[in-house]
């Protein structure tokens, strides 16, 4: 039995586990698939948007800076052509020109200088003392003298301050000369440094050699080589260098920090405007969304697991209960099948036995009849003969009683459900049984509530219950006599009736068995042990209850509770007393 229970417990445990796993899988798979799809779509579209936005921004700024450079160049070219070499060679005139330009464009152009073919500065207008400077050894001079217009990279030069120059070559008597203007680095620098984005986005300009053309930003990498690498690797090597489209590059810098670089070309590809931003910063919304999604996933996962746990536990318990109910039902079906076959057998036996027993009893009776004749009256063993024959008759009648009981057990036939008054039935039975009761010195008192609603049941069955209980009560009372009280009353939704006797009572050890089939305390042959078992079955079938209270020596009380049919009202209590 224990091992069977263990096997069953294992079964429900594994059932619970399987349900749990199934629920978790079924819930998680769609969650993950949809989550994944949404994440992918969102990430792709968001990344594209950010990239497009950054590209537009860089392109716009690059164009702006390029325009600034071109405009300054155009200013300077037109200045260079506006006057002759002789006019410019005059310092005073040059200063006047510078003053005019600065008035028109602000302090963007810091100074002006006229340089002859040998690199000697012929005239100079500006804040520095550079009147006699010689640039013949400067790299920019070599470049400038060999091209029509030249814009240098940013360099410190003779003045010791970062600056870049624009030089325009002109000819005077077949000899080239240069009109040189210095562009204010700070004004240019401010233009670039005004580009900001998020917390970490900033821009700078480098030349082809990776040299900074703008101020270092405190956020810049210490390793400046990286920038030259970006330029060389991603811009120089790329054919996109020739196009206007900004270039992207992003890579891990040192630790786990990922950085995006967007580059736009300036100055016909000589410089590049590079925008740098931390990946996390640029895609902060994406990261935020990812965090929210992850949190949702975790919370969802936890609730799925809790739910799965609850569902599996609940289902397993329900199934266990259903199994138990099924088992009980199966047992009941087996038992009722059993009883039905016993019933049929009993009916057959009863009939087959009663006829031969009747013959035996009658034959014995015939001998008794004959014994009454005079010739037998002197017989020595007359008394013994009479006793033996009487015994045959008595035992024959006992056989009849037994078969009758078996039959009534087997019968239970009239199961038609009717509405009827329990009081009427009790009165009928009390009348029927009154003779038998009187014979046993038993008085029966009825205390019936006359306002009881009808009950809905098989009358035959209720009759059987009453017969059994009253007969038992009479049997429990010894020859000295006693009293039986039958009451009916209503208590809420139940109609109750009880049969109380002043008989011998039932010992505690027997109380728990009295409803078991074939349990009897009566002498062998007197009781079949079926009466109370039948009563119990009938009452339970009617959704009722049967209760027994008993005190040895004082008597027993059997109470039956039957449900009031829904159609019936609830009348008030009223005791009517009848004595039989």
């Amino acid at each position: 039995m224990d091992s069977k229970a263990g096997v069953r417990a294992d079964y429900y445990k594994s059932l619970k586990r399987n349900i749990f796993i199934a629920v978790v899988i079924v819930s998680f798979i769609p969650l993950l698939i949809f989550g994944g799809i949404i994440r992918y779509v969102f990430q792709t579209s968001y990344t594209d948007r950010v990239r497009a936005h950054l590209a537009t921004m860089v392109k716009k700024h690059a164009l702006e800076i390029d325009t600034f450079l071109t405009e300054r160049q155009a200013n300077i070219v037109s200045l260079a052509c506006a006057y002759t070499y002789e006019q410019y060679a005059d310092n005073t005139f040059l200063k006047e020109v510078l003053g005019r330009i600065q008035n028109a464009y602000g302090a963007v152009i810091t100074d002006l200088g006229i340089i002859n073919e040998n690199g000697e500065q012929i005239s100079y207008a500006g804040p520095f003392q550079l009147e006699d400077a010689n640039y013949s050894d400067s790299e920019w001079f070599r470049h400038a003298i060999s091209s029509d217009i030249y814009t240098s990279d940013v360099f410190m030069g003779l003045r010791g301050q970062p600056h870049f120059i624009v030089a325009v070559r002109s000819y005077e008597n077949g000899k080239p000369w240069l009109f040189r203007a210095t562009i204010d680095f700070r004004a240019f620098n401010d233009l670039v440094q005004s580009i900001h984005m998020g917390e970490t986005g900033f821009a700078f300009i480098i030349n082809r050699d990776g040299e900074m053309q703008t101020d270092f930003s405190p956020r810049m990498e210490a390793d400046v080589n990286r920038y030259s690498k970006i330029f060389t690797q991603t811009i120089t090597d790329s054919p996109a260098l020739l196009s206007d489209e900004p270039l992207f590059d992003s890579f891990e810098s040192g630790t786990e920090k990922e950085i995006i670089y967007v580059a736009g070309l300036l100055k016909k590809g000589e410089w590049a405007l590079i925008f740098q931003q931390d990946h996390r910063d640029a895609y902060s919304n994406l990261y935020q969304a990812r965090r929210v999604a992850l949190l949702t996933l975790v919370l969802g996962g936890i609730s799925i697991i809790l739910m799965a746990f609850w569902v599996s536990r609940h289902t397993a318990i329900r199934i266990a209960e259903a199994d138990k109910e099924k088992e009980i039902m199966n047992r009941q079906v087996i038992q009722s099948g059993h009883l039905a076959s016993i019933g049929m057998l009993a009916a057959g036996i009863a009939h087959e036995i009663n006829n031969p027993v009747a013959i035996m009893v009658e034959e014995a009776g015939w001998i008794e009849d004959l014994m009454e004749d005079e010739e037998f009256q002197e017989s020595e063993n007359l008394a013994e003969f009479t006793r033996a024959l009487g015994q045959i008759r008595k035992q024959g009648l006992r056989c009849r009683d037994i078969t009758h009981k078996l039959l009534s057990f087997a019968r239970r036939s009239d199961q038609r459900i009717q509405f009827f008054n329990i009081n009427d039935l009790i009165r009928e039975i009390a009348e029927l049984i009154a003779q038998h009761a009187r014979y046993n010195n038993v008085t029966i008192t009825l205390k019936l509530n006359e306002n009881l609603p009808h009950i809905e049941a098989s009358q035959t069955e209720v009759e059987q219950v009453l017969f059994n209980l009253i007969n038992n009560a009479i049997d429990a009372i010894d020859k000295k006599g006693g009293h039986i009280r039958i009451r009916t009353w209503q208590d809420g939704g139940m109609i109750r009736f009880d049969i109380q006797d002043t008989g011998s009572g039932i010992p505690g050890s027997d109380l728990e068995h009295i409803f078991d089939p074939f349990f009897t305390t009566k002498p062998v042959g007197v009781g079949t042990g079926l009466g109370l078992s039948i009563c119990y079955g009938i009452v339970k079938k009617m959704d009722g209850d049967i209760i027994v209270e008993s005190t040895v020596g004082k008597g027993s009380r059997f109470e039956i509770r039957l449900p009031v049919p829904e159609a019936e009202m609830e009348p008030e209590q009223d005791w009517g007393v009848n004595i039989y």
Partner: protein
Amino acid sequence: MTSNDSTDPIRLLLVDDEVEFTSVMVKRLGRRNIRAMTARNGTEAIAFISGNEFDAAVLDLKMEGMDGLEVLKIFKEKSPEMPVIMLTGHGSHQAAEEGRACGAFDYLSKPYEIEDLTRIIRNAVSERKESA
């Protein structure tokens, strides 16, 4: 014991398919001043009542061929005044009640005390006489 009543014996028709039963009953009833004629089945019994006068009949419910209730119905048609007492082997109240509804005087379950039977027979006969 009323072995020899001075009055005329009661003429009784006893219908039962158990010959062992009827033969002992005839002897026992004879001692009680009841003269019983026996029939082994319904057909025989119906033939008897056509040619004879009976004060009462005792009829077994369960017999080969026609059962007791069918025979009872024919008795009631042919000889409605004759009281009929039903005997039942398996103590079914239901069948016995049915018999009563069809006009049977009373019923008894086998085995019974002979005195119970004779008492019922006498009651039936005297009631018949009174009503006549």
